[in-house]
């Protein structure tokens, strides 16, 4: 095998291997980003850890467990909220949707 051909084969193999490794890494990720949601908090648990949000653009409320910054105050009903929705793998055949606060609520409601 000539040297240029060997180099090409090596480069292609490395690229394919890298792509495969990247794919495998992505598919094994425990957390997958699935979208964003902005709207008003329609329901909130007393701890503020569970909320439902009425989308600003209409549609049915979406509910989920809420992850927020340590200095963020808990969301309460009526707050404007902007959250990222992620799918957390909680088992081999199970995922759970979680909300991550993107825009902490302000107190000037």
């Amino acid at each position, binding site marked *: 095998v000539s040297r240029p051909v060997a180099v090409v084969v090596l480069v292609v193999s490395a690229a394919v291997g890298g792509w495969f490794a990247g794919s495998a890494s992505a598919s094994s990720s425990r957390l997958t980003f699935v979208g964003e949601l902005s709207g008003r908090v329609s329901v909130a648990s007393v701890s503020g850890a569970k909320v439902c949000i009425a989308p600003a653009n209409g549609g049915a409320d979406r509910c989920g467990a809420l992850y927020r910054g340590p200095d963020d105050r808990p969301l309460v*009903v009526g707050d404007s909220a902007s959250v990222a929705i992620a799918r957390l793998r909680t088992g081999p055949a199970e995922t759970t949707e979680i909300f991550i606060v993107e825009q902490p609520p302000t107190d000037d409601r």
Partner: protein
Amino acid sequence: MRFLRTAGAVIGAMAVTTALSADAVGGRPGLQGGEIGLTHGDGFTLTAEEVTTGGAVVDTYSSKSGTIKVIGRRGSSVSIVESTDPATGRRAASVRLSTSRPKTLTDADAYRRSGRSTVADLVALGMPRDQAVREFGDMDTIDGRVPSRAGLDSRMVASVSGAPPVTQLAPTVSGTTPYDTLCASLSYDGGKISGYGCSTLYLVAASGGDWWFDNKYKFSAHSSDGSIIRPQRLFEVGWSLAWATNNIVYDWEPESTINRSECGSVRFSLLAKGVTVSIDAPICPTKIGPWNLGSTRSGSLWQGVERGQAYEAAIGVQAVHSPPNAAASYNSPFKLVWGPFPP
């Protein structure tokens, strides 16, 4: 549990609403039927009525399409609504059980004293006892442990997991006093579509008129349609528990949507007022998540395509604060959606 994959067409939907309210006697205007009055029927009429040894009334309402049986206190009411989605052809069924009771210590203990239990109520509705114990045995204990059959007695109810309630109850009320059950059975299309569901309420703390409840609910339904071509299959199973104004559902499960790619056990639990309340059931694809959520209500909805003739379930738990200005009034809406598969 056996799961068979089948194919079919058409999709259906139905809605049934059942309401049980203590002050709604059969003779009250707008109500008809038996001791559990019918407020809305959509062709359903009372076809049978009996009273259990515990004093609960079992009323059977039937129409050309189905049969609804409910068990509850005298003076309750039932409303039944059916519909078909013209766009999808799906039929949907939802059931609402509700009751209103005096907020007194004497009444708080009435259910326990009656000897009723979730399993006993389901048996009274016609569920085989073995199946009732297997599927709903954990509804008779607040922590979700399934009692052994030998140990299951109609008077056996709550056991506690975790620390005792923070607020002391009056001496006559146990820390996990079972407060009530709301149960119903549903059967459509000659029994091809059937289900049983219950809410079990536990009064875990009380101080004067300030009451705290930990509750759980389960609705288990399935199709027994063995047709090879386009059998009837479930698409949605939902159950919820709602309370009157000024009550506060301050914690609940499921809190978010859980997606499943295979069948497997799902357990929901929460710790409220020092007591853990939990429930579990096998849940199959596609997902189970919150339903009918609000400040006075919470629920659970399974959505997917029923695998074979497997039982599909909606389960959940909730914690409720009932302040002195809130009535001890609650209701359980549930729904089924089904039709031939594939459409």
